[in-house]
């Protein structure tokens, strides 16, 4: 038993630092970190690659002790924390990869994405299914990760913003969002983009009104609303040419 462990199972501290550095700040340079489209794409790929496929450290959610198997962990929880819920594992198909995830039964998908898989594109904002900032696509439908229990997601195909960004098919959509400033502070932007992808999945040639209706569940406080329609229409036109 260890008294310390890692929130993302399978990560060693030195690896975690490396991933954080790469994902958070881009290239380190004496004078700073420069961002570019290519670097963002590399970070997206790295984020997906870094998702652990298996749980290696079974950490007790109550006391933090780490066990070698789920069975051992559950035995410990039953014995040591009689009032606590029992952890379990689920297999999530995220962005084309099967990932074993250690959860508690009340965990939301949003929580699992951030705290188990290191995916932070789905954002914590309203926390009750109103703002759309945590939108992901599950089995072809846009769903809200903050109000979806992760235990209900097993066996379903989940695509997050990172998965969309990593797919070259959706480059025109990402590029159009950037060209049109369809973001200001950028916090709600991934949720909008996932919803936009869901719209285009169903209808590659939406009208402006259909876009407004499709994005009505996403709230932006920075006033970017008109930009989204412009970006999606431009992307749709470009994607139609590329088909």
């Amino acid at each position, binding site marked *: 038993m260890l008294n310390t462990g890692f929130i993302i199972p399978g990560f060693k501290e030195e690896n975690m630092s490396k991933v954080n550095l790469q994902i958070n700040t881009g290239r380190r340079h004496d004078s700073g970190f*420069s961002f570019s489209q290519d670097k963002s794409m590399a970070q997206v790929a790295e984020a997906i690659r870094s998702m652990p496929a298996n749980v290696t450290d079974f950490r007790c959610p109550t006391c933090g002790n780490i066990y070698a198997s789920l069975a051992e962990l559950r035995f410990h929880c039953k014995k040591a924390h009689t009032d606590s819920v029992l952890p379990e594992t689920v297999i999530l198909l995220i962005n084309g990869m099967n990932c074993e995830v250690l959860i508690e039964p009340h965990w939301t998908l949003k929580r699992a994405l951030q705290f188990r898989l290191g995916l932070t594109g789905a954002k914590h904002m309203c926390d009750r299914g109103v703002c759309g900032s945590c939108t992901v696509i599950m089995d072809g439908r846009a769903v809200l990760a903050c109000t979806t229990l992760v235990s209900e997601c097993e066996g379903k195909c989940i695509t997050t913003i*990172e998965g969309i960004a990593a797919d070259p098919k959706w480059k025109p959509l990402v590029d159009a969002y950037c060209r049109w400033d369809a973001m200001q502070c950028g916090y709600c932007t991934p949720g909008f983009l996932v919803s936009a992808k869901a719209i285009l999945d169903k209808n590659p040639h939406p009208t402006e009104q259909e876009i407004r209706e499709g994005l009505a569940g996403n709230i932006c406080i920075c006033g970017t609303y008109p930009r989204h329609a412009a970006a999606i229409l431009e992307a749709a036109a470009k994607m139609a040419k590329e088909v």
Partner: protein
Amino acid sequence: MADLAGINGLRENFKVVGQRNLPGVLSHALATGVAKFGIDYVRPDMLHAKFLHSPYANARVLSVDTTKARSMPGVVDILTWEDEDIVNLVSYAEHWGAPRPWLDNIADQEGAEVAVIVVAESEDICEEALRQLQVEWEMLPHVVDLHEGKKTDAFVIRPQDRSTPAFGAPAPGALPNPPKQGNVAYSNVIQGDIEEGFKQADHIVQYDMYMPAFASLIPNPPGSVAWWSNDFYHGEGKTLHIEGAVRERLPIARMYDMPLEKTVQEGLFMGGRYCDWGLRRSQEITPLLAKRTGRPVRCVMTREETFDSVIMKQRYMYLKVGFTKEGLITAIDDFSVSDGGIWGSSTFGHVGDQKQGPYNTLKCKNISQRMEIVDSNRYKMWVSGQHTPFNWDIVTLALYMISEKLGMDPIEVARLNLHGPSSKDDINPVPSFEACVAAGKTMMDWNWHLSGTKKLPDGRMHGMSFRYQMCPRHSVSGYKCRLEFRDGAVHMPTQGPVFGAYMVEPNAMVAAEELGLTYEDIKVDFHYAAKFSPVGGGSDGSTASAWAMKECANSLKKQILEAAIEYAESWPQMMMTPLNDPPPPEPGPFKGLRPDELDITDGKIYVKADPEKSVPLAQATNRDLVATYSGRPPLAAWLVGGCGNILDTMNAVFCEVAVDTDTGDVEILRFGAVVDPGKALRPTSLESQIDQVMFFSQGSQLLEDFVFDQRTGVKLNSNMIDYKKPTMLDVPVVEHALLETRSGNGAYGASGISHSMANTHLVITAIHNAVGVWVDPPATPDKVLAALGKA
């Protein structure tokens, strides 16, 4: 009033500045989800922290028994307000009002953080531990109704804080504000002779209206993650890492007695912190907890807990305006009762701010402004945002009421009452105003009508409104610009984190413009310790910092041209390079020339007299060069002139509504915004910022308000279901026109507009124009019907 000091201020041939649809330097990171905000950080072995929140609107914690909570498995640490580590904490972030302990046992609003912090293995355990605390509360009377709070026999909710408004302080030499009495502080500014002014009036109109509070609602809930390391990269000794402290690395360093260089915040994204720099406790406490536990600690507020802050306080307004039969205002008596919020609220927006405000745009010299600021247990105002600074609503209303009374177009009333460029005695409005209203009339097919006189074909009533503003920008921030030329490319080291206003990009565009490069040629290198930060009053920060960056770019350009000549002159010596190095490039055809005989365009240095003689910038010299410029543009004219009587750039905004008198439904048919930013540096984001404020206007006047239970003082709509923000289906069309009179004081005569777009009562006056009755905002259908006598 053009104020185009500095190099190339009068430039006409723009290749980069003014371009549309250039992606922001961080846009791809944001759009792809890899941009990490402070609360996104997950560290190995991380703990979580939560504060005790008050269930009462006004209460004191008399005692806390933490025994049961401490015995819970998973609870790592519990601190109370009496612990030495907490007592010793001092915040160096932005604060208002009388000093107060960092955490104490006083809860002055429902939901306030008070008395206890729990650290545990998970947020769930924190919450359960908080439930296990044995807290003895002393409930106190509360004030959520300002009229009750201002009564002389009202319970004094903040006897410890007798401070008077910092922002509302009178001008030097003026009579001081009366001392605070009970819950009421005062902010008064009296100009001229009010009594005499009303004697000169042919008409007097009066107005009495309520203005609701408006939630700032930062999209990313405030919070932080902190940890300590022995990171060799930052030198000997412990390094404090904190993510989520927004731009406030220095206050955090001071708070924990750390050298600034060993206080690290690498994240670049702070979210929509528009004019809200106040650090929440959740952003300040994590370093202490991480130090005590030896583990990373995350403390993040819930969305519900972030409904504690507003950018527009509740206000009751009483306005009396005297004017001649021609429409010239002779006197204004403006009295309002404003929410002082909880302890530590900013007084920004109170009447002492009028040097930047609307009354100084008027010819009228007889103006009385009195405000009673009532302490309350409602919420905290960190600082005023883009929506309603400087009380512009009052002038908008005054002009509208005159126009209704006299049957005059409000634009004509504005023209009559606006003074000219330099003083209240200047008769004619500034050219920028005339340009804005001319463009606006065309844009809106402006055809003024009296209230209740125009019915649309579908049976709804048509209303229209107009307001003008000056562009009250700061221009008081100084900027430390730096550009580096290395390896053939130009780099712009820039401080992070940044918030959502595209302030970095205009600087890169200006640097590119001056250096004859493309926008993409400027490599923006973000680093938390870089000196250059373009923040400073919204787009004012962009335009003023871009002025300084323009100077810096020209300094670098001079060095590059000198270096190119030096390289050409000394090329044979340059050949003496180590054998293993690549051969140096051929020199340019610049031998024997002076720097002023050269220029740069399209990424090439060329001879002005013979443009065919050129060489790519990257090959012109093998030297690394650095240029710096510290400073700011000349102060905006109105700041130099005092009292804001000097005007230059203006803007005009219009609104059209349709009101259904059977259902009470109000539809905004369109907004129109004609804005003079002097010179539009980055039009795409400029228009987006205009949209933002228009949607703020829509929200606050049609949808948004805080609802309190008067008996308990509890907020009833602290969530995004019950507190209504406009969605994409709600917002109307916003038409824009950007004028370029080059009369600001930023780069190329640009001017910030971010503090000039307040539109309070724009929609409300349009509703009045439609139906002839006043409706208190937010004008929900039930209120409209009640005002029409139908409810």
